[in-house]
């Protein structure tokens, strides 16, 4: 298209106001389209409900409402020009996750029983699902209908799919993660420009995601079939595969993965490790069989190194404090480490009852996060790596101000904008965590909820990092149900902002974003 034609089109495109810099109609249009398809997700719990003879109405209504609303929004803004640019991207992402959490909460409202039907609780559970956090307000897992329990698991799996697109395609374009951080972007046939490449990349990673989920389901189910783990039914296998790959952490069991055998726990460790690695890298290693590229990746190396060190630290503590011994101690150490670092949030032991030193170790791990381009949340390993390098450069330049030192990642210089964005991200992340912790601690103290200072700090870190469990009554075997409404809303905000890597959310709060 010639520049003239483009200008002409720009002049013709309908503008509802002259001062608004964001094309809200286009945003609504795209969100409507997404909602229209999202509503179809209820088909799976409907199938489960039919199989177990439970009511399908909650899901039918939820699906119809969501798809209907999506369709309506899409129709209402049908004549809006398709102008979803970078600016609109922030709003689309933010609104999508808010609405998706609302959609997820509808079946809880209709059929969740007493423990989920309160709107704030339902929305909390929905947000925890779609952000793949894994924090729950459920207290009595036995009382949940099978279909509702599976719906919880499934929302996390859907959230994981969204995150893959978010992490691979959307956030880098919004300069949040930085394209350069995903240097291992899948090479593919260069078809018709950028958006087509994103689409094909996302498609390939989805296939990988689905494939790994299927593989895990099979691996877990075979334990049941072989009689190694008689609690691992097909239903449980699928339910837990649904929440491992998105590094979610919801479980159908009150005692999380402790309910299952050692073999199941080790299998889940392996899949958590994969879920916390850069998916593009996993694709290269597993599908393209280029293990050398995986092994050479600096973020992957640090990811593995951190996991090793942390696993050993936790194992030694667990053993020496006498909580577990031998293989059980190793398993407890490794499982909890991998679960927290990948921000999954499963547990094989109630670490809330462990010693303070162990709690502090786990607390520290909540700030690590998995790899960029994975489904995990948190700060992420690559940011730690680059911030470390920036700090070292800062020290070197203190001595020699004239030194020119590009920061490299896998041998490629990272541009200074990306580095600044990382510094900004970490500061905002810490800020969100601190404010969140203060709010939770304050309300708990006033409302005499049994949440201590460390607990409040951990709850906030767990929410903003999309981990899930924290300490005290909100530990891996506990529930967030006793918390006050302010705390729950705070956590919803933290989970939402943390999932979107904070900056898109904060951008929406600036005047510059909205005004010309």
């Amino acid at each position, binding site marked *: 298209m010639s520049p003239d034609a483009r200008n002409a089109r720009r002049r013709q495109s309908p503008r509802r106001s002259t001062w608004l810099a964001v094309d809200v109609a286009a945003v609504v249009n795209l969100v409507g389209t997404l909602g229209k398809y999202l509503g179809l997700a209820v088909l799976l719990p409907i199938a489960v409900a039919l199989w177990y003879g439970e009511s399908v109405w909650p899901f039918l209504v939820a699906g119809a409402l969501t798809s209907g609303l999506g369709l309506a929004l899409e129709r209402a803004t049908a004549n809006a020009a398709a102008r979803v640019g970078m600016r609109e991207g922030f709003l689309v992402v933010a609104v999508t996750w808010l609405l998706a959490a609302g959609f997820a909460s509808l079946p809880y409202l209709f059929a969740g029983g007493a423990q989920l039907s309160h709107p704030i609780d339902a929305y909390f559970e929905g947000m925890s699902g779609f952000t793949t956090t894994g924090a729950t307000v459920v207290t009595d897992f036995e009382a949940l209908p099978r279909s509702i329990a599976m719906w919880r698991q499934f929302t996390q799996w859907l959230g994981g799919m969204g995150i893959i697109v978010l992490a691979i395609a959307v956030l880098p374009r919004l300069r949040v993660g930085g394209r350069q951080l995903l240097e291992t972007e899948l090479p593919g046939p260069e078809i018709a420009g950028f958006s087509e490449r994103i689409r094909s990349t996302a498609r390939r990673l989805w296939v990988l995601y689905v494939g790994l989920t299927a593989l895990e389901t099979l691996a877990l189910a075979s334990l049941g079939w072989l009689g190694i783990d008689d609690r691992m039914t097909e239903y449980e296998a699928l339910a837990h595969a649904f929440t491992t790959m998105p590094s979610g952490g919801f479980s159908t069991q009150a005692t999380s993965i402790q309910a299952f055998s050692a073999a199941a726990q080790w299998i889940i460790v392996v899949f958590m490790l994969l879920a916390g690695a850069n998916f593009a890298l996993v694709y290269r290693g597993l599908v393209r069989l280029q293990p050398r590229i995986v092994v050479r990746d600096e973020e992957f190396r640090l990811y593995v190194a951190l996991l090793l060190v942390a696993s050993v630290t936790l194992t030694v503590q667990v053993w020496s404090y006498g909580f577990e011994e031998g293989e059980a101690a190793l398993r407890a150490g490794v499982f909890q480490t991998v679960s927290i670092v990948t921000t999954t949030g499963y547990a094989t032991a109630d670490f809330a009852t462990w010693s303070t030193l162990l709690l502090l170790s786990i607390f520290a791990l909540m700030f690590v996060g998995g790899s960029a381009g994975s489904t995990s949340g948190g700060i992420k390993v690559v940011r730690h790596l680059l911030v470390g390098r920036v700090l070292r450069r800062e020290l070197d330049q203190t*001595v*020699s101000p*004239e*030194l*020119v*030192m*590009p920061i*490299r990642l896998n*041998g490629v*210089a990272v541009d200074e904008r990306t580095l600044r964005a990382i510094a900004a991200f970490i500061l905002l992340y810490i800020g969100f965590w601190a404010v969140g912790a203060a709010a939770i601690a304050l309300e708990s103290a006033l409302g005499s909820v049994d949440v201590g200072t460390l607990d409040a700090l951990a709850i906030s870190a767990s929410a903003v990092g999309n981990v899930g469990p924290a300490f005290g009554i909100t530990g891996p075997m506990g529930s967030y149900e006793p918390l006050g409404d302010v705390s729950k809303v705070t956590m919803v905000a933290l989970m939402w902002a943390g999932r979107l890597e904070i900056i898109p959310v904060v951008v929406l709060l600036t005047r510059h974003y909205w005004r010309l």
Partner: protein
Amino acid sequence: MKIFLIGAGQVGFAIVEALHADHAITVLDTEPSRLAALSERYDVVTVEGDGTSRQDLVRAGVRDADLVIACTSRDEVNLVTGMFARAEARKATAVIRTSNVEYVELWRAGELDVDFVVCSELETAHAISRIIGVPAARQTDVFAEGQVQIVEFEVADGASPDMVGVPLREAKIPADSKVAAIIRGDRMLLPGGDERIEPGDRIVVIGSPQAAQAWSALLAPGEETVRDAVIYGAGRVGTAIAHVLIEQGIGVRLIESSLERARAVAESLPGARVYHATGVDPDFLERERIGQAGVAIFAMRDDAKNLYAASLAKVHGVQFTIGIAHEPISVTAFEQGGIDVSVNPRMVTAEEIIRFAHDPRTQQVALLEGNRYEVLDVTLKDTSEYIGKRFKDMPVRGALIGAVVRNGAALFPHRDDVLQAGDRVIVFTEAADAPRVVKAL
């Protein structure tokens, strides 16, 4: 041989100077004044014309040439000329000069349709790395894939008494090496066993790389092998030097006054430390301990800046300085000003190009002492009178065989050794005698 030369600049001049006596040279240039200067001094045909014009090339007679050399200062002109030369003079060898390493790589990959590409920057970098390899050397050249080095030393007052002042046959000469020549004032001696090396002489040594280093240690005790280098100027020359030195395991610090350039170089050379500085700020020099560097190389674009920066570096304690002299006269100015070694990229380039004009059996030449002496790398003819002769029986003809390459391995001949057909010999000779020597071999 009919040589067709495009570009009568410094490189062109140096080539004409070295080759005009034995070859028919036609020089093409767009600038009449340069051609006039050339034809006044040498017996060459000059034609005014444009190397990028096929018509001009044909009119000047490029079709008859055996060797076409495109050595203007502009890469694009040289490339186009080289391509036309290939099209018009199919039997000729086309050699082009470039200042961009990229073209060398392209040529190696077979993507440039010329016979040889000579890159000033790369040749300069290699020349400097050879000098650094032997710290006491004024000039070095390598032959036989690096197995043989020709090194010119200046004999300082502190040189080892085992070597200086004693007759050569009694001197403790390092193994696998030979004194090819002693240069005393304006005279060159091909030394016999009675000759002595005196302080102030310059000597030319042919030997293995280890022997060259041993010589260096004997003649300039206390000069250690260079471990780190400071390079002023991260332009094409500076970057090429840095690249070559890093490959040899020498630590490199680069000083560049343009921030943009400094950033670009820092990104492309992970092994180097890059400073954004002028290099003439005393605080900076002190703080970064530039004075402790094993060698400082001045590769900025401006000769005057190079000289000043080198003087300042000397003040701060740098022992070993190498200057890139862009103007021929700067070589002298640099030496007067105290820079230990100067390298003129255009001379280095000319030297490289001249090699192509020699007998096809001659693989490589080096020019010493401003073109007065040459070192040749010649393969023996089957009919050569030298085959089967012992070295001690060979007639002395103003030339010296420093090394023999037999089946790819270098030998350093002794008195009783015998030459065989097919041997490659490394010969040191006066430039004027070179064609005669080649013929005799």
